[in-house]
């Protein structure tokens, strides 16, 4: 590999027609695996379609459901995976899902120091910052400072719990239901639940914050 590619290890310019080295590798691996019948010819396309349906909006619905349905909330906290499978949300990987509930005394935040483990089944693909060094390096060491950088100031008497994801266990933060939402229906509640609130770097939006977005 030339040093030029090392300095610019990114995608080829859109529209230049020729795929890069790694895209060619991806195409070649996929074609060979289909030919050797490791998986069927339509499986990658089908998986792409399934992945397109997995966005933070799905996570928001789950949180809103947990806020209005105490029995579901208990099942979700007891075993995240089976509670979601009950809603027809299947998992791609052989992983468990732990749901971490924020309270008046505990604020949870999720990181993956080793790589980028993330509850993709319900939040989709993680944001770039979740996969890059600064967030992974610092969140386990100085979570209060990291959260403040996201505009989330946690009072000193509230414990911050940092959960480090692994290949086997993924985490979803169940944010606190904002005040002033007593009359909200599930759909209105879901609109307050952002991706970042489910990672734990922010709180759920207040109705006022949601209006001003």
């Amino acid at each position: 590999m030339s040093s030029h590619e090392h300095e610019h290890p990114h995608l080829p310019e859109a529209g230049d027609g020729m795929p890069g080295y790694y895209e060619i590798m991806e195409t070649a691996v996929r074609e060979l695996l289909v030919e050797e019948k490791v998986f069927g010819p339509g499986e990658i396309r089908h998986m792409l379609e399934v992945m397109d349906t997995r966005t933070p909006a799905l996570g928001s619905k789950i949180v809103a459901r947990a806020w209005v349905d105490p029995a579901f909330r208990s099942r979700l906290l007891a075993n995240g995976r089976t509670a979601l499978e009950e809603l027809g949300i299947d998992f791609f990987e052989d992983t468990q899902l732990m749901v971490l509930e924020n309270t008046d005394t505990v604020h949870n935040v999720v990181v993956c120091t080793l790589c980028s483990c993330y509850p993709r089944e319900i939040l989709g693909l993680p944001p770039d910052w979740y996969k890059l060094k600064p967030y992974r390096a610092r969140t386990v060491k100085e979570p209060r400072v990291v959260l403040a950088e996201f505009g989330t100031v946690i009072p000193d008497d509230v414990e911050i719990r940092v959960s480090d994801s692994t290949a086997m266990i993924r985490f979803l933060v169940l944010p606190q239901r904002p005040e002033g939402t007593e009359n909200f229906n599930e759909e209105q509640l879901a609109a307050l639940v952002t991706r970042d609130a489910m990672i734990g770097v922010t709180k759920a939006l207040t109705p006022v914050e949601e209006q001003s977005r």
Partner: protein
Amino acid sequence: MTHTEELVRRLPTEMGGLEAGAILRTEHEYAPWEKRCHALANVLDTHKIVNTEEKRRGIEALGTEMVASLTYYERWIVAFANILFQKQILTPEELSKRMSDVEARYSATATTG
């Protein structure tokens, strides 16, 4: 700790607790091949061919320099190729040949199209 001791003690992917700068809240739109790479990971996992633990170890086995220099999905596809070689599902020769074929196919399209 000397540089080599640091390399021995810390896996290439292990970031927890290191000194690092500000968190830049960057996000990018994934390229189609990156999404396909991710779909490949999921399909290999659902067929119980490569699990998440093996994926992570595959990335670590690329070593510190490659982990630091390749982009996220570049690391993934290279790691998958290595894992598939180790499991004798693919051989380096057939991948190399197929990559040449794919490249030739694209070149032909680029010239005629």
